[in-house]
């Protein structure tokens, strides 16, 4: 972790070329240095944070007064930091019979913020409450509803439920951070007493990092894939030398427990939707043997999306994995116990994250916890099936090699697509895909669940989602189009993105056929599409011309138009359901 001084220095670099993020901070204690830390962390992660800091201790006023500076500034992200100290102060002022209402009162305030229509499209990042154990009742406080301990814990629990309920509320778990760092490192009593700062100087970079983890995840920057070395990373020892019985795993041999628990963590990540891959210097058969035969292996071959075990370099194997998965290196994490391999990967693939694993495998997990590598801004149940989909993709790739004619191959897939508007069932996935899609994404507008719900309710918007199923399996929801009227005759394609898993299947043609059909039904004559370049979406630069759109001359951006009436339905081998 950087120090506050390092974060401050990073602000001296020229940040003008970086994308700007508008962020407000409202707190009930001194937050100036926290602001510095957030701006510095933002700079390191490639964002120029345009920050508004509300005056000290004005949380309620800023939110309740519609003319306040907070509303004037109109930030996309609002960080709300109400401290445990001030909460405790409030608790001690209340008559005892009202103390049991403390959590409810605060939750009511948070609900007011979340339901404020002016803030509906904003992301509220709310700090939860690191516990202060006041020992007024000792452990007995757990039995006393009016105790501070009881109310504080209730508040933290109920905040989770609120954030489940309100898609625009994101809890920044600084209580969890305090569990990791320890209260004595999180808080400096002498500094607090003389300055009203409840966070120690050393804690600030960690807090800022957690805030930016959330901001980056919402902006679409997060990890999707974990690549594992095997020997001494997934199990103790070297399978090629020690053999199946000799490797350390489980509660029997050596430090096997450390590896078993590490595997349990990886398995949970897989179940959450992180793609797990293997890159190991081994014979493939030898490397797979523990997965198939060792009774203490938690990870099975089924859990691994791409298994690369051979004598190529790790760099080559990681590149192969990247090509199969078709995701950016910056969304990948590589874990290897060997410092030499780690450095080689870092040097050749700078975008990939390569944590500096501790020497002692017993320390792996606690170290990895401290990095918070897998922050996310959405979660859907479909995430669990992702590994299967990539395994299926590998099969599909091998089938396509047996056909000489592309059309014959596509026909043989028996593809079916379900077309639907946005519904409460597909909204989480639509929002998630809007945050994840980088390459096949024409305008890269990011939408949250709340945004998608608003679009679904807008009668002027034509919202389309597409699934794709074939004989190998169901890819689930893979493409989304949002069209908005510019005038009576013209529709503008606000959003068109597609998962790269279904490239080269004719899905673009199928999507456009559907778009034109919907446009005709609603009486539109023209569709205008726009391409906004990002570092990652060059793939679709010529998307519209390739589909027969004409370039709009004189437009400031790359815009293209299509005559709806003259459109000839494009050939594709996908059946609409």
């Amino acid at each position, binding site marked *: 972790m950087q120090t*506050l*001084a390092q974060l*401050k*220095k990073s602000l*001296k670099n020229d940040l003008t070329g970086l994308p700007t993020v508008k962020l407000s901070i409202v707190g009930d204690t001194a937050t*100036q*240095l926290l602001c510095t830390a957030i701006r510095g962390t933002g700079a390191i992660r490639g964002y120029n944070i345009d920050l508004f800091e509300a005056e000290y201790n004005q949380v309620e006023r800023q939110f309740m007064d519609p003319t306040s500076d907070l509303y004037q500034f109109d930030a996309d992200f609002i960080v709300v930091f109400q401290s445990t100290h001030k909460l405790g102060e409030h608790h001690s002022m209340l008559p005892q019979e009202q103390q049991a209402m403390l959590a409810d009162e605060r939750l009511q305030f948070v609900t007011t913020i979340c339901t404020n229509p002016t803030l509906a499209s904003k992301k509220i990042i709310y700090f939860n409450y690191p516990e202060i154990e006041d020992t007024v009742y000792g452990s007995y406080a757990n039995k006393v509803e009016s105790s501070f301990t009881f109310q504080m814990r209730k508040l933290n629990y109920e905040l989770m439920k609120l954030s489940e309920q309100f898609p625009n509320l994101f809890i920044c778990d600084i209580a969890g951070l305090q569990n990791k760092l320890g209260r004595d490192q999180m808080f*400096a*009593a*002498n*500094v607090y*007493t*003389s*300055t009203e*700062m409840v966070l*120690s*100087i*050393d804690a600030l970079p960690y807090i800022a990092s957690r805030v930016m983890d959330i901001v980056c995840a919402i902006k679409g920057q997060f990890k999707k894939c974990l690549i594992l070395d095997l020997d001494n990373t997934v199990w103790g020892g070297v399978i090629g030398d020690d053999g199946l019985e000799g490797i350390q795993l489980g509660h029997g041999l050596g430090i096997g427990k450390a590896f078993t628990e590490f595997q349990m963590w990886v398995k949970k990540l897989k179940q959450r939707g992180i793609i797990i891959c293997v890159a190991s210097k081994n014979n493939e058969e030898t490397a797979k043997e523990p997965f198939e035969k060792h009774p203490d292996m938690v990870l099975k071959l089924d859990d691994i999306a791409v298994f690369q075990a051979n004598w190529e370099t790790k760099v080559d194997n990681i590149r192969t994995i990247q090509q199969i998965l078709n995701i950016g290196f910056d969304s990948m994490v590589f874990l290897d116990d060997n410092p030499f391999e780690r450095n080689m990967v870092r040097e050749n693939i700078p975008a990939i994250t390569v944590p500096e694993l501790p020497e002692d495998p017993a320390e792996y997990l606690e170290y990895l916890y401290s990095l918070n590598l897998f922050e996310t801004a959405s979660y859907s149940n479909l995430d669990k099936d992702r590994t299967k989909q990539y395994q299926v993709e590998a099969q599909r790739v091998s089938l396509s090699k047996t056909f000489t004619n592309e059309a014959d191959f596509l026909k043989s897939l028996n593809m079916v697509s379900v077309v639907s508007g946005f519904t409460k069932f597909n909204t989480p996935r639509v929002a998630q895909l809007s945050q994840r899609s980088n390459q096949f994404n024409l305008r890269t507008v990011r939408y949250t669940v709340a945004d998608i719900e608003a679009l679904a309710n807008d009668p002027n918007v034509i919202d389309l989602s597409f699934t794709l199923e074939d004989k190998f399996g169901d890819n689930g929801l893979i493409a989304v189009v949002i069209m908005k009227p510019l005038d009576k005759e013209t529709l503008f394609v606000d959003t068109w993105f597609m998962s790269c898993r279904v490239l080269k299947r004719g899905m673009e043609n199928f999507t456009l056929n559907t778009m034109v059909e919907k446009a005709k039904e609603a009486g539109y004559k023209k569709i205008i599409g726009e391409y906004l370049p990002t570092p990652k979406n060059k793939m679709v630069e010529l998307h519209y011309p390739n589909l027969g759109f004409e370039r709009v001359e004189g437009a400031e951006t790359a815009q293209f138009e299509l005559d709806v009436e003259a459109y000839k339905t494009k050939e594709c081998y996908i059946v609409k359901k």
Partner: protein
Amino acid sequence: MDKNQFLADVQEIFRDVLDNEDIVITNETVADDIEEWDSLSHIQLIVAIEKHFHIKFNSKELMGWKTVGDMIDCISTK
């Protein structure tokens, strides 16, 4: 360590935290003499000094200093 050595160390800390290599401090230096030395950077200076000398100031001491000399006197009692 004598007080001159303390002063030299503290000067280095001032230069580092305030990010200004030209800062020169004496026992008589007060916050008004150094542009970057405000209440916010003061806290960063305190924490950096605590770390450097492996000491801890109490909150009364933090509030009581007027000059760099007061600071040095306090460090030398630890």
